[in-house]
């Protein structure tokens, strides 16, 4: 594929039913009302010269290069800011405008370095292009006048440089930072000739509030803002469209290469999830894929105390197959199992669960989604009938009230957060339900109407109280409920009970009753109310109850089944949705169908051969218990680091040590690999072909940018293990795996690589009824028929603060790091977040004699760790907070065995702890070495 240059229509689309017909240089064109002359011309195939205009930004009318003449109008208006009018006749090339454009270009070039041949943007510079387009032949002003050529270069950002000497002050970067990203970190400082782009208040980019999303770099028409990788490697020459492997937003990117070397990732304008935007991780943090820590050869060892021995693939695969079978012969067929990864493709996940069910002959397969969004699957299936979010991301543009519960989108799902912030700037109201004052509560041009700062573990009491207000104040959408729902009366009686009122729950939740009432009214009375939530909902002992509580609230207010509403999980990892869809849970076959369903099992048995067990298998925590018990002896761990990510690590490591065969497939020798007997090197997303499914059910293509560095595809390795175990599995290409998925999964029957290549992406269900997918679910009826109200009694967690452990620890993430940091800590992103810190309230700090920056101990009833304190009033007194991206944090050393009652999702968000000033240790000066040694004794996965 050659380098993909997407067309730029100059100004944004103005969709709408009314159209206007005009002529541009004699070419007739009909466009939606409100379209600019520039865009209309571009749609007619006529490119008007431009510099300050690009179709991702609102027109600005600054460069004056796009001037045109319009019959019957005076002067030479800018085509970017002039909307079309019926019957308009536009002339884009006249002697008058040509002269004007040349004059403009002369001025620009008179203050621009004439180093095109050595400039990194040579060949990809709009200024250079426009000089050619307008026929610039001379610069009458010369180059000796006052200029900006000596302006200082800012190289502080690890990924891009800011060379002010090349700036033409078009404001595209400033506008991209505001309009696209919503951070407003950039501004134009000074007036007239002194005008210059400035990050923050005259700071460097790194010192400023810049979040390094790269929107400014992408918008820059010159080399003023330029990727360091382009400076170092040169302009890319070809592109491959693929999907980001970080969070559940699932952004599409053009991977741009020079030969076989990846130069940069550029967000794809046609990407359904991101529409041309990105965050710092997706755009820049891909260096881990070529990091020297990558393992590329299979390795085996008899005991975990032995050194690793590199072997060929045949030996590694044969060893896994032989030892797994031996364990089954010795301990029974249920003695082995596997864990699939939400970081891997649908096709890889599908073959792993197939290997377990068909070759292992049991249902002992689970996925890392167990420890993040399993309550979403359970709760939404119970109420709506489908284990997935209801909307597409675009839907937020129609929301009037947005309620964010237990999620921090600006850090965890930044590209979706940008969409959300755009809607908030347009006037939508925001309710934040979170123990911590996240950035969305108050940031540039965004202020939450209500921040319900609840105590950790009281989500259900809060959502019940909101529903109580809706029911008792007559705010129920009766028509919706009567027509679309069932079991309302029983729920209504329950929720209207006095014990669910805001006043009754105020002491428990910490949320003032009046504030809660106001928030409930705001949500219920909005034309469109939308709920977005994250792990602050699911990772509780009542996670499933809370998901059902939100579903109840949405149904009661009629907020399901159209644009701008819905209940929307923000999935943590790139393929959480997909790994669940693919049958990773021990009780469900692909498509969320229970293993006890004879008809469903028959479909798979006929295709795969053999018998599928009708009984559920072990979940991840059950596997650990059974390992310690002695009935579970062998585990295949695919792309997951359970010795970092799962709670109560002492228990996890004891289980791993108890097993006779642990097989780890991963990019790096991770913590779990320390307990492994076979290590199978994995491929990075840049080496994979397949699909990821994002949080909006969008199936995106992942395309290989390069061959697997390990010599084998992961689906191929898994298939060969199954074959060696006596169950032949053979595919020539991942598209054949997707064809099989479509054959056996009703919501995927229309999905194929061919369709995805044609449409770009589709949102399941994609089948005969919805051949091009389903952006919004439950439109005319719920998947289960009637939406079901479920009584959501608040059952407090067993985890209580005590005299010994008086504080509650809750956790979250930061923008620049991802999950346990295995990828992002191996990139330039470490520049932003060199270590995790413990945020604690000034009061809690003062009574313990802790000052900002002190090293403190963090202890729970199961373990203790140390980290640096940061005094912050983002949390209420009594609550402490940390991120979990760095090894030294060790948050899972302190998290407990408590879990969601329905799904066993760990209660990561509520741990009773004590914090104390740490005594200085001899090795405190070598904190980094300690971190490296413990490498990644971390925490919550999602």
């Amino acid at each position, binding site marked *: 594929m050659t380098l993909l240059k997407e067309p730029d229509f100059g100004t944004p689309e103005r969709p709408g039913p009314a159209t206007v017909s005009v002529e541009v240089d004699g070419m007739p064109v009909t466009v939606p009302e409100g379209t600019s002359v520039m865009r209309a011309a571009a749609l007619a195939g006529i490119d008007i010269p431009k510099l300050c205009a690009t179709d991702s930004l609102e027109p600005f009318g600054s460069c004056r290069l796009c001037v045109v003449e319009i019959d019957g109008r005076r002067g030479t208006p800018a085509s970017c800011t002039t909307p079309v009018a019926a019957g308009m006749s536009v002339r884009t090339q006249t002697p008058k405008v040509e002269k004007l454009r040349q004059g403009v270009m002369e001025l620009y070039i008179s203050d621009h370095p004439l180093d095109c041949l050595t400039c990194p943007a040579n060949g990809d510079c709009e200024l250079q292009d426009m000089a050619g387009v307008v026929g610039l032949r001379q610069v009458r002003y010369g180059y000796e006048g006052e200029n900006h050529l000596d302006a200082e270069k800012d190289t502080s950002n690890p990924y891009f440089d800011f060379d002010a000497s090349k700036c033409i002050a078009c404001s595209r970067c400033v506008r991209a930072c505001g309009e696209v990203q919503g951070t407003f970190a950039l501004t134009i400082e000074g007036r007239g000739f002194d005008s210059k782009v400035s990050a923050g208040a005259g700071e460097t980019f790194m010192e400023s509030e810049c979040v390094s999303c790269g929107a400014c770099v992408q918008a820059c028409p010159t080399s003023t803002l330029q990727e360091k990788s382009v400076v170092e490697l040169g302009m890319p020459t070809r592109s491959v469209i693929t999907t980001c492997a970080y969070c559940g937003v699932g952004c599409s990117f053009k991977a741009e290469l020079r030969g076989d070397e990846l130069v940069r990732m550029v967000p794809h304008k046609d990407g359904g999830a991101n529409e041309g935007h990105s965050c710092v991780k997706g755009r820049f943090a891909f260096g881990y894929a070529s990091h020297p820590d990558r393992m590329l050869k299979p390795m085996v060892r008899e005991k975990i105390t032995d050194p690793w021995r590199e072997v060929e693939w045949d030996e590694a695969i044969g060893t896994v197959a032989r030892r797994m079978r031996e364990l089954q012969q010795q301990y029974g067929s249920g003695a082995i199992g596997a864990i699939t990864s939400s970081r891997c493709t649908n096709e890889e996940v599908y073959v792993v669960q197939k290997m377990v069910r068909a070759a292992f002959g049991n249902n002992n397969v689970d996925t890392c989604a167990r420890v993040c969004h399993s309550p979403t699957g359970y709760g939404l299936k119970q109420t709506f009938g489908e284990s997935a979010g209801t909307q597409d991301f675009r839907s937020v543009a129609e929301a009037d009230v947005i309620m964010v519960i237990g999620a921090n989108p600006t850090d965890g799902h930044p590209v979706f957060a940008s969409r959300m912030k755009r809607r908030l700037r347009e006037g939508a109201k925001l309710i934040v339900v979170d123990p911590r004052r996240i950035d969305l509560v108050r940031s540039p041009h965004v202020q939450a109407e209500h921040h319900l700062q609840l105590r950790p573990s009281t989500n259900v009491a809060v959502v019940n109280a909101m529903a109580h207000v809706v029911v008792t104040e007559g705010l129920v959408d009766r028509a919706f409920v009567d027509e679309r729902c069932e079991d309302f009366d029983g729920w209504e009686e329950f929720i209207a009970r006095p014990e669910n009122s805001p006043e009754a729950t105020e002491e428990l939740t910490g949320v003032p009753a009046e504030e809660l009432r106001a928030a409930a009214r705001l949500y219920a009375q909005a034309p469109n109310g939308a709920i977005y939530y994250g792990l602050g909902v699911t990772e509780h002992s009542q996670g499933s109850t809370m998901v059902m509580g939100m579903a109840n609230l949405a149904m009661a207010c009629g907020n399901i089944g159209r644009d701008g509403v819905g209940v929307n999980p923000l999935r943590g990892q790139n393929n959480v949705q997909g790994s669940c869809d693919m049958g990773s849970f021990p009780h469900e076959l692909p498509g969320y169908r229970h293993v006890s369903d004879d008809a469903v099992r028959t479909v798979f048995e006929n295709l795969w051969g053999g018998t599928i067990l009708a009984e*559920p*298998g072990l979940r991840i925590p059950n596997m650990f218990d059974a390992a310690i018990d002695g009935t579970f002896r062998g585990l295949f761990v695919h792309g997951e680091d359970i010795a970092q990510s799962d709670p109560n690590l*002492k228990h996890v490591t004891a289980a791993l040590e108890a097993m006779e065969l642990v097989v780890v497939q991963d990019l790096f020798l991770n913590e779990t690999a320390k307990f492994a007997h076979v290590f199978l090197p994995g491929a990075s997303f840049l080496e994979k072909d397949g699909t990821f499914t994002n949080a909006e059910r969008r199936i995106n293509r992942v395309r290989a940018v390069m061959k697997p560095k390990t010599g084998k595809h992961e689906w191929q390795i898994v298939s060969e293990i199954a074959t060696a175990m006596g169950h032949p599995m053979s595919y020539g290409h991942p598209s054949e795996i997707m064809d099989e998925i479509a054959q056996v999964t009703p919501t995927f029957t229309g999905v194929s690589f061919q369709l995805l290549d044609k449409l770009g992406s589709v949102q399941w269900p994609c089948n005969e009824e919805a051949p091009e997918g389903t952006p919004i679910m439950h439109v005319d009826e719920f998947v289960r028929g009637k939406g079901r109200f479920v009584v959501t009694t608040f059952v407090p967690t067993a985890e209580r603060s005590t005299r010994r452990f008086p504080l509650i620890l809750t956790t979250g993430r930061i923008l620049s790091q991802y999950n346990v940091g295995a990828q992002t800590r191996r990139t330039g992103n470490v520049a932003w977040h060199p270590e995790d810190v413990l945020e604690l309230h000034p009061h809690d700090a003062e009574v313990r004699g802790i000052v900002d920056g002190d090293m403190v101990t963090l202890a729970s009833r199961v373990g203790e760790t140390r980290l640096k304190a940061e005094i912050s009033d983002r949390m209420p007194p009594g609550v402490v907070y940390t991120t979990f991206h760095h090894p030294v944090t060790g948050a899972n050393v302190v998290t407990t065995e408590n879990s969601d009652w329905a799904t066993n999702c760990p209660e990561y968000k509520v741990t009773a702890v004590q914090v104390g000033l740490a005594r200085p240790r001899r090795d405190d000066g070598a904190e980094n070495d300690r971190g490296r040694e413990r490498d990644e004794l971390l925490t919550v996965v999602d």
Partner: protein
Amino acid sequence: MAGAVPAERRMANDIAANLVHLPGASAAEAVAGHIGRFWDPRMRTRLFDFVDAGADGLDPLVVEAVKLLR
């Protein structure tokens, strides 16, 4: 200490606590249904063993559910 409560007992009690609000016999049926639908057979066997050993620390609703499961 963590793990002092056997996992199956803790999990079964959690399920019971969240379904006890259901009326009459449907609560025990729901607990039995949930355990039957989501638990590996060896876990159910261990739960039965707890009941047989005197049901120490088990929610009475779980005991009722176990009768249905058997």
